[in-house]
């Protein structure tokens, strides 16, 4: 469910609504940012900037264009990718090992109470290599269908259907 009423209040600059929106969307947004930067301090900085943009630009969001989830996701990915171009990021990422979100999840030993941690770990275990790449590019890095197709040397239509299979598997395990 999309919190339509909360979004409306947010657009009217209601501070309480903003706090509630933060509670709902901050942790997964933090996850997306972190999967790109792999640095807690930088990720926190970007998370701050993202939610300040959410507050400032809330009026620009329209249900007609897409999901509120997607709107914040776009802001977050763009802000995080901007950060990867900064000097601070380049200096700190000499010995970068984790390339995919999956690497982060595999290294993690504690998960938020908000999620089905066992389900997520089970999913990572059974995840096909192509799914790792598809989800990483399309969801975590924000590639377009065309960019993904080119990066993976995969036909456009195949990107769409293969990705659906990958997500279906996730939903199956999480029972969503």
């Amino acid at each position, binding site marked *: *469910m*999309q919190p339509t009423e909360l979004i409306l209040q947010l657009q009217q600059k209601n*501070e*309480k609504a903003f*706090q509630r929106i*933060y509670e709902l969307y*901050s*942790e*997964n*947004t*933090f*996850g*997306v940012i*972190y*999967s790109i930067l792999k640095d*807690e301090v930088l990720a*926190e900085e970007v*998370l*701050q900037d993202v*939610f*300040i943009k959410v*507050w400032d630009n809330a009026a620009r969001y329209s*249900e*007609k*264009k*897409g*999901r509120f*989830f*997607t709107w914040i*996701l*776009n802001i977050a990915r763009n802000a995080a990718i901007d950060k990867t171009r900064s000097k601070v990021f380049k200096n700190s990422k000499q010995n970068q090992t984790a390339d995919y*979100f999956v690497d*982060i*999840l595999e290294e993690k030993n504690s*998960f*938020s109470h*908000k*999620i089905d*941690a066992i*389900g*997520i770990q089970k*999913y990572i275990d059974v995840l096909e290599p192509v799914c790792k790449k598809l*989800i990483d590019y*399309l*969801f*975590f890095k*924000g*590639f*377009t*269908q065309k960019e*993904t197709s080119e990066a993976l040397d995969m036909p456009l239509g195949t990107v*769409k*259907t293969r*990705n*659906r299979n990958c*997500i279906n598997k*996730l*939903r199956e395990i*999480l029972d*969503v």
Partner: protein
Amino acid sequence: MDSKNYIDSGILELYVYGALSEKESMEVSQALQQHPEIRAEVEAIERSLTQLSTAAAPYQPDQVYQQIKTKLNFKDQEVAMIPITRKRTNWPAYIGWAASVALLIGLFIQFDKNKELRQEVVQSQIEKNLLEGKIQVAEEDLTKTKTILSVLRNKDVIEVPLQAQQVAPEAYAAVYWDKESQTAYIDVAGLPTPPPGKVYQVWSLKLDPLTPTSLGTLDSFNEEATKVFALNNANESEAFGITLEPEGGSESPTMEQLYTLGVVNS
């Protein structure tokens, strides 16, 4: 539109990713407004992706919100998140203190009132005692007066008027002698108040030869309202006299200070 084929095409996942063009996205938005099954599918995809990305977060970024609030200059900085518990703990404490203070004030007021009431009770008690005393005095007076009256009415009582002498020409007294009870009632209402250090002394007299016998001094002349004194008289009196004597009385009457004298008619 065939919803099932539409869903199976995989376009909805790309829609949630934000991987579609603006035009394609608007078409999907419109489709999910019209088809509840498409909307349900989109929401399910969104939930699974929320879990996946939340799992990638190193920790819950709650403290970042405080920094955002500060940057945005939110007015209600104290209201949000942590301070809620602070407020919750404070209110009962404030109410508790207020109640204690109120109770204390109440106790003081009660204590004060209690003191006042006690004083009133004490005063009432004093007034009551005074009134009781007055009643007692009145009753005693009444009894005396009744006794005097009964004496006066008794036909067996001998009435002896005592006439004024040279010392005090205006003086007057009377003796009512009840021989049977050997009591002489001396009415001295007509005598002047004795000067300080002096008392009236009553004498029973035998005339031949003249022998005075003291019946007693009227020590409480000023205090006795009726001015009637009962004195014991076992003598065969032939006359009664009253003299003014020094305090404590004298052995024999001072004749120069004889105020009244009367002879018994037999």
